[in-house]
């Protein structure tokens, strides 16, 4: 455990606070997913599992596991696997993975948004990419 690990935990909590705050204003952004995917490009598998389980513990809203929880559990691990398998440049890979994660999430949970409210999806995409990039930039610098 080091300062970088603690900073990553803080980033997960910050993503939760910001996402819930934006939601209370009627603005939908998936900052938690973006943070988890960005962290998947910066940490080892067990840290990624811990961040993911921590985030799921906070966002699970019922005494059962819904499809959203399964997706949020799988996507960061898939991002980690893609990073290891394809040896992408981490910063570019994390942005591509965040975008892909959002497309998969919306495609699985609310595919009609692509046609009915494309602006809402684009807003989420831009917000999530910015937040994911910020998390990556801060923690990547701390790791060097």
């Amino acid at each position, binding site marked *: *455990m080091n300062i970088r690990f603690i900073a990553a935990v803080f980033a997960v*909590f910050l993503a*939760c*606070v910001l*996402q*819930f*705050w934006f*939601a*209370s204003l*009627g603005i*939908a*952004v*998936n900052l938690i997913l973006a943070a988890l995917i960005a962290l998947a490009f910066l940490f*080892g598998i*067990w*840290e990624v*599992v*811990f961040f993911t*389980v*921590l985030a*799921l*513990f*906070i*966002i*699970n*809203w*019922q*005494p*059962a596991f819904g499809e*959203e929880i399964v997706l949020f559990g799988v996507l960061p691990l898939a991002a980690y696997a893609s990073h290891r398998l394809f040896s992408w440049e981490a910063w570019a890979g994390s942005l591509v993975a965040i975008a892909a994660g959002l497309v998969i999430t919306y495609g699985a*949970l*609310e595919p*009609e948004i692509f046609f009915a409210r494309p602006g809402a999806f684009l807003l*989420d995409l831009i917000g999530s990419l910015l937040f994911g990039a910020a998390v990556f930039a801060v923690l990547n610098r701390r790791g060097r």
Partner: protein
Amino acid sequence: MSRKPESEKWILAGLIAFVAVLMVFLPSYGWHLRDYLSPQSHASSADDVSLKAQNEVLLADLAKLQAVTAELPAKPSNYIRAMVFSRYPLNFKNQMLVDAGANQGVKVGAAAVFQGVLVGRVTTVFGDSALVTTVFDTSFKMPVRIGSHGYDGLLAGGPYPSINSISKDALLAPGDIVYAAAEGVPYGLPVGQIDATSTSPDSLFENAALNFAYDANDIQTVFVAQ
């Protein structure tokens, strides 16, 4: 990435196991944690919300008395108060978990009422809790009636709920009360008020946007029909 010391791996494994056990066996700790991380509701607006809701209830009562008194069944009295445990945290649904479930007699389809106004219906029941899908969920659909003439319409939920399939002959006005006319929900339960009307894209029906007397994010307790 450097190799970790064995002790660090065990600490990490312990942390993962600890949080996973909490998530599976004591999920309410996660709901409390989320409460701390979420913005607090605005208590100062509570009186305003209450007055608006009472106004909707009175308008609905008036509409019922004017047009549908003969059809009214006895008002059901068996509601139970339920606290809102947690809310759906993402932007794909609008649900809340309440602390009354099968053990308290809650059934799927039961109405959830806040300040006398229908806010949603129970869609999943657990032992001591139940999920209420609110009128702000895109999957929410329910037959309703409008105003003192009792025009029929279909409430379509979503971020901006609307009433669809209203007859083109309907004489609607902003402020007209919308009330439930669905199986399993007490007839005449107010839902909201007409905000504005428009013609459907195929020009066959009228549509109406709705005003609500409450903010769903501020709801702390509801009454659930048993």
